């Protein structure tokens, strides 16, 4: 009965967030203290949240409570509900909050010029986590939507932290609009759901009603609305455009929490609304899964490609988030398809992949964004082309970023690999189970696209680490970088440690997921470790999810044991300059981020448009060149230029429409007369 402690813990956490918010504002005159106490309270609250989730998952007894309610039928009623699905995401939330809170406590010390605004950021941060907690716990439509939009608004305000910059203002605005459009779709979905439950706003009533006929238009409409709504938040293509703008411009801890945690709220929302409320554990129509998986694959592949060619560190990470959300959607789609084809084992495998990758992505992406924030502080840039050699100036950060990059690239033995491995398994399972040719071809294409994605993501993150940390610094200011503060390092270290531990121990934490799987599939019991064998397969070779564990443990042991004799004498006796054909090797000779991916970029030239700007000044035109500047602009297709053109066109049309109100009172009278005459004729 340890789960009885969950609600008190959560209540305490909520109060703690509120106090943190208040403390941030009250201590406004002393930003440093506001920072320390505000974020400290956030971390503390997150710890409680984490514990609450874990305790619940140890002993999953669904609980419902009412925070407050009005006796007015359509008013706000904030009832909360804790079940396995929410508990899992609560664990994720708590985990993120602990590390990011610790990190953020040290982050703002470098933002001297913004000291007036820091208290607001502290307050916003606490509110943000409270809103996300509310989203997960909400048990009625009103509460959910309020927290959802509150989450969006607060994050918008935090994104606008450095609002002197035009780029920040623009990005923030685009984020705000996009997320609100998404919310509008969610409102549609919820309104339809509620209307089917007799106008009740309670999730319980919706769950109990379950009178939406399978395959009906209403059901499809709800699904599409939810998909668009949550897909926008998740940054799934083609609703992704806000993400690479908003995440990079925010302060480090904000982008870490947005990319790491907030995007997962979309996954939670999809699971809650589609799997739980809409389907109630029943099998979805086949095309839902197919739609999701196609969107996911496209996002994963394109996200990885855009990340590959990006040279701004934070934008690159944002594109990588799109890629990872795509992978999550692939897992979700696979689970849905497996559900509709009645393949329980595959369903469980795919959901397993989904949940594990959610956790893993939130860990390594937060880690990377926090690291990027640290670099931004130290080197005063997020442009990879200006960095280099940071491994010497920021030794600790570089180790953690190394882990983060490898985890993000899906390289063993870090956690990204563990969940991508499950993802590949489930897609391969999909191929194996496809009965018709179309399904097989489709699944195969998806598999190859995902393999390509993984490889491209690897290249992208090698670029990050190789260019930012290795070789020698490319700019003077980079060489003056110093190690990040202790608090920041601690925050990053928590996640780096988790990324390493979960890489090897992913199988071992699957027990956390098993109640969630039970809830998602409506199964009475879920057999873990999952035994998965293809129908045509050999009965004696079975594969289980745990199998990676001994392998992963074995590998480093083997490596160390076998290479120990070699290691003993291994130390370079001499350090000499790098050979560079006789000239002195310097930052001029090393590869740049642009050059590193140039050849790959040309392979995918169809998707990534390239603009070359060559600016030449002559001493004696056109023979003797004095200076030549080369600049390359790369933008993902469907990007800025297209949007700009669209904006111009729309503006032109609108300006034409404005003539309607041209100031002539006679024209206005004409409208009245015309309206009247039209009505008189119409009503005949």
């Amino acid at each position: 009965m340890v789960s009885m402690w969950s609600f008190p813990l959560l209540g305490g956490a909520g109060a703690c967030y509120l106090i943190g918010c208040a403390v941030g504002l009250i201590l406004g005159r002393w930003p440093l203290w506001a920072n320390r106490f505000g974020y400290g309270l956030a971390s503390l609250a997150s710890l409680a949240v984490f514990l609450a989730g874990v305790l619940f998952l140890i002993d999953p007894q669904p609980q419902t409570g009412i925070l407050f309610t009005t006796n007015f039928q359509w008013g706000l009623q904030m009832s909360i509900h804790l079940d396995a699905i929410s508990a899992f995401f609560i664990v994720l939330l708590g985990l993120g909050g602990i590390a990011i809170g610790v990190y953020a406590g040290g982050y703002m010390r470098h933002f001297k010029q913004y000291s007036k605004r820091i208290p607001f950021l502290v307050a916003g941060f606490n509110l943000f986590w409270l809103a996300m907690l509310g989203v997960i716990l909400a048990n009625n439509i009103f509460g959910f939507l309020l927290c959802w939009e509150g989450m969006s608004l607060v994050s918008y305000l935090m994104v606008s932290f450095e609002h002197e910059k035009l780029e920040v203002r623009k990005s923030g605005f685009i984020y705000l609009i996009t997320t609100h459009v998404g919310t509008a779709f969610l409102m549609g979905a919820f309104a339809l759901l509620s209307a089917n439950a007799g106008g009740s706003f309670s999730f319980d009533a919706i769950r109990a009603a379950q009178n939406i006929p399978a395959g009906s238009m209403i059901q499809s409409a709800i699904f599409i609305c939810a998909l668009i709504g949550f897909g926008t938040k998740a940054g799934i293509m083609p609703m992704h455009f806000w993400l690479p703008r908003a995440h990079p411009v925010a302060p480090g801890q904000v982008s870490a929490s947005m990319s790491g945690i907030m995007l997962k709220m979309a996954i939670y929302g999809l699971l809650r609304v589609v799997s739980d409320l809409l389907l109630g554990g029943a099998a979805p129509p086949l095309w839902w899964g197919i739609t999701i998986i196609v969107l996911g694959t496209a996002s994963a592949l394109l996200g990885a490609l855009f990340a590959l060619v990006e040279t701004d560190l934070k934008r690159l990470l944002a594109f990588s988030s799109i890629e990872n959300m795509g992978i999550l959607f692939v897992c979700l789609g696979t689970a849905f398809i497996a559900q509709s084809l009645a393949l329980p084992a595959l369903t469980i495998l795919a959901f397993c992949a989904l949940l594990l990758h959610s956790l893993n992505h939130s860990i390594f992406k937060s880690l990377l964004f926090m690291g990027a924030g640290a670099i931004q502080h130290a080197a005063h840039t997020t442009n990879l082309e200006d960095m280099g050699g940071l491994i010497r100036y920021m030794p600790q950060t570089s180790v953690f970023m190394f882990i983060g990059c490898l985890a993000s690239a899906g390289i063993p033995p870090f956690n990204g690999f563990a969940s991508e491995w499950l993802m590949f398994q489930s897609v391969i399972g999909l191929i194996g189970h496809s009965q018709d040719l179309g399904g097989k071809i489709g699944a195969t294409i998806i598999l190859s696209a995902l393999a390509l994605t993984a490889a491209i993501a690897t290249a992208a993150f090698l670029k990050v680490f190789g260019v930012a940390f290795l070789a020698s610094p490319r700019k003077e200011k980079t060489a003056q970088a110093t190690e990040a503060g202790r608090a920041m390092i601690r925050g990053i270290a928590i996640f780096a440690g988790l990324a390493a531990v979960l890489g090897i121990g992913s199988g071992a934490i699957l027990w956390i997921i098993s109640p969630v799987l039970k809830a998602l599939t409506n199964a009475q019991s879920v057999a873990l470790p999952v035994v998965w064998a293809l129908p045509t397969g050999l009965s004696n070779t079975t594969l289980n999810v745990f199998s990676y564990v001994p392998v992963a443990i074995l590998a480093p042991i083997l490596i160390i044991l076998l290479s120990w004799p070699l290691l003993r004498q291994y130390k370079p006796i001499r350090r000499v300059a790098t050979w560079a054909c006789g000239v002195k090797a310097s930052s001029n000779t090393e590869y740049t981020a642009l050059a590193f991916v140039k050849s790959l970029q040309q392979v995918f030239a169809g998707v990534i448009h390239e603009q070359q700007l060559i600016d030449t000044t002559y001493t004696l035109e056109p023979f003797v060149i004095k200076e030549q500047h080369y600049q390359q602009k790369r933008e993902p297709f469907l990007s800025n230029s297209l949007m700009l053109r669209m904006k111009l066109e729309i503006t032109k049309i609108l300006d034409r429409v404005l003539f309607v109100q041209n100031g002539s009172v006679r024209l206005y009278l004409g409208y009245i007369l015309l309206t009247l005459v039209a009505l008189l004729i119409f009503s005949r």
Partner: protein
Amino acid sequence: MAFPLSLLMLLAGAISAFLTLIISRFSRNATFICFIGAAGPIIAAQSAVTLIAQILTQGGQFTFAPFFFADALSALLLGIIAMVSVLVMLYSIPYVLREFHQGHLSISQIGLLYFWSGLLLTTMYFTVLCSSLGVMWVFIEATTLVSVPLVGLTGSKASLEATWKYLMLATVGISFALLGTLILYASAVSQLGEGSNTLDWIFLLKHASDLNPGLVKLAFIFILVGYGTKAGLAPLHTWLPDAHSQAPTPISALLSGALLNCAFYGILRLFLIARITIGVEYPSILLIVFGLFSIGFVIPFIIRQYDLKRLLAYSSVEHMGIIALAIGIGGKLGMYAAALHMVTHALAKSTMFCVTGEVVDRTRTRKIARIAGLSQAAPIVSTLLFISALAIVGAPPMNVFISEWLTVMAMIVQQQYVIAGIFLMLLAILFGAMLARITPMVWGNQPPMLGPSDLSGIYSIVTITADPTTPMLQMQDIPNTNNMNTLSTHIDPPIHAAIIAPTSEKTHHFAILNGMAIGILIPACTALLLLGLWIPQWLSFWIQSASEVLK
């Protein structure tokens, strides 16, 4: 039925109006005039609240006197007018004083402002309290006539233009409404015979099924177009952005928050009759079409808007459209949503106008493009601006969201999925369009401010409360700065701010006025937020009774 005293008390507004007019002829003390002018409407609002309590506790409909009648719907409108008038009148004090000290308003103009606005409030109260539809028409026309001078108060060319358009279009519109009323009367007379109560609302409602459907249909069209012009339904709204942008800011708040609802009240009354006589189908379709058109029509104007107050005026058109739409959709939920939206919009829009007044006053421009960096220069005002903007666009923690959301729910319940889809889409576009105008003013790094900061205002208020020897009335000593004003009209705002930055002594007085304004606006914005999170029992009872009438 006993003649309630509170009905007489509603005349307090008119009495104080005449008082201010007289005083402004003799006194030069602007503060005094302001307080007298604001006191009357506030007393009237208090008695309106008493009246509402009486109406609601006695339940249903009742007649006070030969011409007076009220039911829950009137109570709703009474409440809205009272609410808006209290906010506006309180806010008008610092606003008007500041304008006066900066030389934008003269003493006689202040007198006129309070005179006409007191009369406007009184006519509005009586609009919703009269039993005869004919008398109602008279009062609605009267609201036009007394609000026209308010629009033209500043006497500039632009305000004269706005006044002319307002007068012209409202008069034409109102004539149509009169024709509609006459047609209704003709129908009633020929069917039910003549009597002094033939145009009485209860009488008509009782015999609505006996009326001639053809004539009632005709009457409804004329009344919809007529009062619709006054209520600002597109495409009849064209006077509205002009008038609302040219009037002094508190008056804009009054016009947008209360007057539009009063005009809409006229449509509602006839809608209730027409629904019985010609069936619910036809009037509902008309309202839905007008509603959707109003919401959609304003989009380009909001996207390409250059003037802050016009922006809000267009937003009012949109919100009147939402009310019309909700009523057209109908059903228990739809009517509730409409009633709630009247309240939420009135509160949000009047607050927003007042906040805008703060913004305009500190930047001395209404041009959106020229305002930036408010969050640095005036953090509290910018926060209030952002909160009220969120309320206006219906973002979730705010009160307008609830009514818009209930409207969507009503559509879904009535299975109007297409309309719900269009509505949600339009709302999302409007959200973007509106915030695209507001956010650039809030953010940025260019403080174009004039005068003291918000915080010093708050501190000044604290000083005053702590030290009663610094009365507000001291401010009459500040010299009229007309020459500064003439100078400023020719200079760009940022430069302006630099040139005529007030002296420290004056700064203190302005700080007190700014602080007072903020002190009024902070509770208002908090109310927007709180009403979004939690609607108290008495409020929901009030709105629900009104929606029962509509149902």
